[in-house]
């Protein structure tokens, strides 16, 4: 783990070598991952990964140069600067660059969202937990597969005007699939929390096991339009894509986003409100971005109306606004986008949503969701690990999985009821999302698969 002092030393080692007209900002992104992957009731892959990347951004007279380097590859700070200056010399005149901030940034070794027990959780402890879960699975003639991990990550920002910020955080997770060896039905569950002690492996196992058991003897149903009850995990998947397709600011400003020219118009159900909130205790975002600006809360959608977008310095300048602290790493070319999502929920439990459904389908999660047409919000994907037919307010029988092809606006327009919120995770991008269960009156299942 790289301490605050070590981060300061690494990020500030170049400043003594700068010319008076040069400005430099440096961002250190460091991480440590201990991840135990398991399948067939055994550990298949077990890794301890330490990574560190230093991003450097040099500016002088409307030209800029950027470099990303692992600290281990730095032989002499002066020689790194020399490389940057060569790049700067060959770079075009940008006509405008943005001064680096001169404000104070949060700098602490122990913010909320940092838990020593998560950081110190050992591979032996993980193996011990998994051993017990594997024994439980074997008793029931099931296999477990998944990923049990703990991560530490820190962001440190420095610039030649004296600004410095440092923010570490921890993440623990247990993501599990249980498969019946007799019927090959599967169930899944996962939990993500900064504090690993808040994750109950037994609960995760029981949830995934229950779904796998209930999924036995699945029946085929004709593809078509059906009311659905979506588990929070399924909702979060759709929410992630809704935000990516609507709120990538650069696309919005270029006119190639669904949301272009539509901010402020009622586009979705009045039940839909979504906030970008890195300060939420369950989301634990870094409080500043890669440009040294403080990350701000934004009301993305309020009662069905898209309200606010996020900015880095460049998009803010174009809009005549201020940066909201959403500059991503220079190596990520998508531009500013919200990634601490909180969709506001209601009071109903999942069971209550089911009880209030005359006929419909309960979906636990989606798999391989992808975009068929971004400007039309057209998505496709599969259901997975828990699909059930609901009749007269009760789960009647399990179903074979469907492919869905949906228009996201139509889905989020036809929300009937919102359930309670839950913290879940985009398993692809390791970002937490808070989303509720929801009942939607119309959802298109376009074809079926064999299982």
């Amino acid at each position, binding site marked *: 783990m790289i301490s605050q002092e070590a981060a300061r030393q690494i990020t500030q080692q170049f400043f003594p070598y700068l010319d008076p007209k040069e400005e430099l900002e440096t961002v250190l992104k460091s991480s440590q991952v201990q991840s135990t992957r398991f*399948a067939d009731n055994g550990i298949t892959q077990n890794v301890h990964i330490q990574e560190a990347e230093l991003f450097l951004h040099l500016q002088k007279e409307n030209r800029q140069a950027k470099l990303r380097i692992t600290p281990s590859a730095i032989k002499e700070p002066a020689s790194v600067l020399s490389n940057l200056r060569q790049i700067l010399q060959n770079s075009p005149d940008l006509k405008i660059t943005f001064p680096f901030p001169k404000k104070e940034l949060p700098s602490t070794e122990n913010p909320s969202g940092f838990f020593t027990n998560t950081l110190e959780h050992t591979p032996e402890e993980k193996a011990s937990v998994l051993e017990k879960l594997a024994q439980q699975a074997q008793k029931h003639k099931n296999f477990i597969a998944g990923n049990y991990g703990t991560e530490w990550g820190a962001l440190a920002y420095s610039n030649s005007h004296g600004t410095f910020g440092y923010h570490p955080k921890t993440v623990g997770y247990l993501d599990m699939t249980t498969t019946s060896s007799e019927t090959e039905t599967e169930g899944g569950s996962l939990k993500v929390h900064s504090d690993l002690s808040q994750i109950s492996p037994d609960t995760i196992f029981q949830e995934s096991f229950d779904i796998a058991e209930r999924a036995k003897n699945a029946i085929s149903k004709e593809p078509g339009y059906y009311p659905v009850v979506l588990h929070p995990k399924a909702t979060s998947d759709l929410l992630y894509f809704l935000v990516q397709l609507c709120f990538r600011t650069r696309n919005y400003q270029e006119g190639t986003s669904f949301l272009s020219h539509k901010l402020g118009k009622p586009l979705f159900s009045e039940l839909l409100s979504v906030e970008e909130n890195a300060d939420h205790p369950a989301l634990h975002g870094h409080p500043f971005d890669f440009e040294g600006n403080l990350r701000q809360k934004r009301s993305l959608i309020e009662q069905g109306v898209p309200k606010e977008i996020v900015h880095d310095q460049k998009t803010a300048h174009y809009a005549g606004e201020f940066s909201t602290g959403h500059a991503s790493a*220079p190596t990520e070319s998508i531009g500013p986008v919200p990634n601490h999502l909180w969709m506001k929920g209601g009071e109903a439990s999942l069971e209550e949503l089911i009880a209030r459904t005359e006929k419909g389908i309960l979906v636990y999660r989606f798999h391989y969701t992808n975009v068929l047409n971004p400007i039309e919000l057209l998505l496709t994907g599969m259901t997975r690990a828990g699909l059930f037919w609901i009749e007269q307010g009760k789960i009647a029988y399990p179903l074979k999985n469907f492919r869905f092809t949906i228009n996201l606006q139509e889905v989020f327009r036809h929300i009937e009821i919102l359930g309670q919120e839950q913290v879940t995770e985009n398993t692809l991008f390791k970002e937490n999302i808070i989303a509720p269960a929801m009942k939607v009156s119309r959802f298109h299942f376009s074809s079926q698969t064999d299982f």
Partner: protein
Amino acid sequence: MKKLAQLAIDTALEKGASYADIRLIETQFEQFIVRNGQLSTAENTLSLGYGIRVLLNDAWGFASSTDLAPAKIKETALMAVRIAQSSARILGDRMILAPESAYEDFWMTPYILHPAKVPMEQKLDLLFRAETILRQDSRIKMAKAQMEYQEEKQHFANSQGSYIVQHLLRSGCGITATAVENGEAQTRSYPMSFGGNHRGGGYEVILASQLVEHAEKTREEAIQLVYAEPCPYKITDIVLGNGQMALQIHESVGHANELDRVLGWEANFAGRSFNTRDHLGHFQYGSEEVNLVADNTLPQGLSTQAYDDDGVKAQRFHVVQQGVFKNYFTTRDTARYIQQERSNGCNRAQGFAHMPITRIPNLSLMPGTLSLEELLGGVDDGIYMDTNRAWSIDQMRLNFQFGCEIAYEIKKGKLGKLYKNPTYQGMTPPFWRSCDGIANQDHWELIGVINCGKGQPMQIAEMTHGSSPARFRNVQVGIQA
């Protein structure tokens, strides 16, 4: 480097490991993106680090670091041993390695002009010229030209005495234009979507792409697509162009035949495979026209290297031969599950920080015998599609739905009107069995995939798929209103 590598291996062996290896990797990466008249990305990356893999009591442990101090290398090796010890407590499948000889060798990707030797000014000039042509119509709201190269200098050493140094170089470029009119947006890319086309090699790959020469056509196609009719919803015959064939091969053959996936090791995340081990040697995967060959010796292939990350020599083998399933992609720890005496060399990791896992190698559909005219001529009423835009497949690699950037009606063997938003769906074996024509080697092209994601933690790998256009019968196209 060799001394540091030996230190890591000796440390692991002293602690009881039966096998250890280390990959020390220095990576140089450069990328330029010009977007809407501005240099939006100019990235230079230099990374250096190592990953140590240890086998103890038939269980793997892996640890990586960027700190090259000898004391830290020892510490990292000891962490890998500790991790292996904890893995050994609950072993489902024992990790027993297929034999492979030890090698001392050096290999590098052949190239003509190293991209680092080309002045930045020259690279930017090429991109700005191409991008300017793309923007010569006010309906184009996003115009982008990009190029990149990556060079990896790998040192691999293992406890069996191998010491292999490989310098892997890949380069690629592309242009993209998005036209917007009346709330409709359409994108057209050249030579491929999602960052362009990439090959093993140097700046000659960039020059051969001829971005400037293709910019006008790319722009005009994007604009025409805005006004085109949507792809109809029907069951029909389709011909897929090279670009889309690469994606078809990747998703419905590549991932389906990673043996670790078949064994269930990816069950939680990406899923498993319908192509179970009882299919080996006799399952009718496709029609007799279909020959799919894996080849990590392929010139300019993105996963071409002399040895994989197990230190196994690169090989060429059939995955599907005349439609019949023949071989999975294996590694030293999975080969025994199909009674293979030797791994076929498909173990790779992203950089130094990740543990190697089974990855799709270069995988190509062998050319057929038809000219393109004959291929299209065999379609009375159908659709030609190309350049991938979207992909989704179920966790057993069966039900898929893919989308392309552009399509044309085929009427009595000739290309006709333009269609926008083309999609098609199917189930993997019936789809490949419906293939009844493949164009010949005159139309065979290498398409590079640089964004193949797998594993937890996620890793990215690159590979190449060669293909000619191919014809498939009775396929569901379009989306029901």
